[in-house]
């Protein structure tokens, strides 16, 4: 039985078969469903059509349960399948049939006939607690947060001394079901942000009124999960100098399962600009913004949010920091917060040069390519795709053409 633990299963795979009429074999957990063993297979477990290993042990994990046509006789189609989203309370529902009397003949048949088997309904690893067998999905469609995760989210509401942060980076009324809104939203309380200037004090009603001066609806920000409440709601905070509003860059979204947890989610992709293309054109000089100094490092910063939001911006050149220190010579002991704030402001107000723009677009398209071929998005994989595209001389806009996607992701797919 222990061999089942941490085993990877696919949807439709048989996890366990119980022969006992008393239904003592297992309890259905999340990610599984119960099916009656059909009579022909019950009588003859060695049926060649059934390679599911449906013996009385829990070892059967070789095959998949066969799909039967809908038009079969009634006792052939007793598939009991309930919603995946019902709470944990019904894990023990197999031994009180009275509760299910309303479910009609499926439930009745379930009581009448003994042998059942438990089948995985999602792909993932098997987890077993005593009799309860569940499958933890390996690639959940919905992001479930853990404390300390980096989030790239969008503000979708301000009020009640907290910001509502969309984890899908999408607007509130995108037509998705409202029932799962707690899974798609986080809360950023006012007490979870650093006040401008970095002062530490109790938040007052003036601060509540000035919330929009910090973040307004539509703004993108990075933050961290501070706490996960019992119902799955995430409480976020930005009380670190690294977190805060995102400006002057591009957001792209991927399925959350493609972004793995790693040590550092603020990564720098190096060498994204091919050397011969670094001729920044500066014919937009009638600008209210400063023009970049022209010092291009060819690096691009990528913030990998675990909720699937990925933010791409240029790397802040080191000489900015130096020049900042130079100007602040008299008080070179200026706090780090101030320096960072100034750098960030300068980044927001400085135009991105053409070559940096190309680098950002290239990284963005590389991430899109990886999303399309369902590869994990790591700095290494992004770098591989970027390097391959540069080596092959693929133009940025061609990176999303199907034939090139296949070509430039080859190295990451074969790993």
């Amino acid at each position, binding site marked *: 039985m222990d061999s089942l633990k941490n085993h990877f299963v696919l949807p439709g795979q048989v996890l366990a078969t119980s022969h006992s009429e008393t239904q003592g074999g297992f309890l259905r957990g999340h990610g599984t469903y119960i099916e009656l063993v059909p009579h022909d297979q019950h009588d003859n477990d060695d049926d060649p059509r059934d390679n599911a290993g449906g013996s009385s042990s829990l070892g059967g994990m070789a095959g998949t349960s066969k799909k039967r046509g809908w038009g079969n006789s009634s006792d052939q189609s007793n598939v009991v399948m309930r919603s995946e989203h019902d709470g944990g309370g019904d894990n023990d529902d197999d031994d009180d049939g009275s509760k299910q009397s309303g479910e009609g003949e499926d439930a009745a048949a379930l009581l009448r006939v003994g042998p059942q088997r438990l089948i995985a309904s999602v792909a993932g690893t098997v987890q077993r607690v005593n009799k309860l067998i569940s499958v933890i999905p390996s690639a959940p469609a919905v992001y479930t947060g853990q404390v300390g995760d980096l989030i790239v989210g969008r503000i979708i509401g301000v009020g009640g001394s907290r910001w509502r942060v969309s984890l899908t980076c999408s607007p509130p009324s995108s037509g998705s079901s409202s029932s799962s809104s707690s899974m798609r939203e986080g809360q950023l309380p006012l007490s979870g942000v650093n006040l401008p200037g970095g002062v530490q004090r109790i938040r007052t009603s003036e601060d509540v009124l000035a919330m929009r001066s910090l973040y307004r609806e539509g703004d993108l920000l990075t933050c961290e999960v501070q706490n996960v409440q019992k119902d799955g709601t995430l409480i976020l905070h930005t009380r670190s100098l690294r977190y805060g509003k995102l400006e002057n*860059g591009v957001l792209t979204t991927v399925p959350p399962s493609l972004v793995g947890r790693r040590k550092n989610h603020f990564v720098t992709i190096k060498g994204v600009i091919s050397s011969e293309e670094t001729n920044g054109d500066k014919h937009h000089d009638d600008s209210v913004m400063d023009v970049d100094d022209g010092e291009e490092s060819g690096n691009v910063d990528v913030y990998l949010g675990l909720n699937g939001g990925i933010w791409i911006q240029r790397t802040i050149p080191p000489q900015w920091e130096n020049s900042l220190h130079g100007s602040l010579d008299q008080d070179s002991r200026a706090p780090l917060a101030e320096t960072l704030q100034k750098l960030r402001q300068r980044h927001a107000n400085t135009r991105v040069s053409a070559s940096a723009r190309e680098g950002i677009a290239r990284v963005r398209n590389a991430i899109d390519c990886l999303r399309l071929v369902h590869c994990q998005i790591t700095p290494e994989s992004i770098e591989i795709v970027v390097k391959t595209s540069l080596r092959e001389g693929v133009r940025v806009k061609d990176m999303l053409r199907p034939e090139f996607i296949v070509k430039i992701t080859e190295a990451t797919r074969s790993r």
Partner: protein
Amino acid sequence: MAISPTEAHYIIESALHDFRIDGRSRLEHRPYSVGTRPSTTTTATSSSSCLILSNGSSRIHLPGSSTDILCSVKADLVRPSPNKPNEGVVEISVDSSLAGGLDLSLGGAGGGGGTAAKRQLRERESQITSLLQRLVVPHAVHYRELAICPGKYVWRLSVDIVVLRCDGCVLDGCAMAMREGLRSTLLPRVSAVMNGEEGVASGVGDHGGSSNNDLIVEGDVRMALPPPGVEDCPLVVTVGVLSAPMGAGGRVRHVCVVDARTEEEACASSRVCVSVDRKGMVCGVHTLGGGGMENRMEDEFGGLGLGISSSMPVNMLGDVVNTAAGAAKNLYEMLDREKELSDGKDLVRDDHDTSGYGNLLKSQLLIR
């Protein structure tokens, strides 16, 4: 879609550099693929449409199905309406209930609740339908040649479009799907034999035993033809006008982009749908409202809000239409190329990269 001013600013800047966020230039379309063939497992069938029970069908999609639009054309013979007795009928219905975040930005970004969302969806669908009705349908086919027997039998082409997913420019996609669907439609040759006396037949009813009027249907599929005039069916190009308040003199720069992504659509100050036919003739122009950016942009840029409203200067219009016509030309070429690929060299291409694109991207599940 709400978008932050700084994102919008980046997008507009990128467009000004003629290097958009995904690397395209201003007038470039994304690589739409046209599927008018059944899926690769059933290429043996002689039908050229991808839905087997329709008279014609098509599927327009982008890599990874970020846009995926299906179109099905059903043809049947109906009695024409009395005020147009010798013209066929084209009917459109659009279903976008499966596409979640599709936004044509006609209403506010509000809503949220069940019924409100549903109402918004209906509004959106009816807006797409009515726009197609105005921009594409009048030029889609030669209506007079769809009449089998004037006053009695005409073809009715029912075009059903399902938007499965859309990443910006839903009208363009729908028009493409409709055009390709109509082009793949095959109508059997039907001739009416009207040797009965008209009065009696119409008085009693068509299927009355006394009438000896009859329809002769040519059963040979090789003799079936696409609806006449379908090559002139126009495409829609939506031009997004991005406006950037720049310069010390408060000068506003406008820039036109075609085939905008959702993000780009969200920061367009206005959008103009232009339907252009094969010969480069403009068949219709419609202006959609802008994104939800206007007031915020004004705040953000210190009240420079000249022109950052959901309107544009009138001399811009010619520019926009020229842009659209130029882009449409490329789009026609691209679709033709695609069509050629999917029609002629289908088998060759499949053999060629079965290991690659076909397996990886065509049947992928997008997890949202």
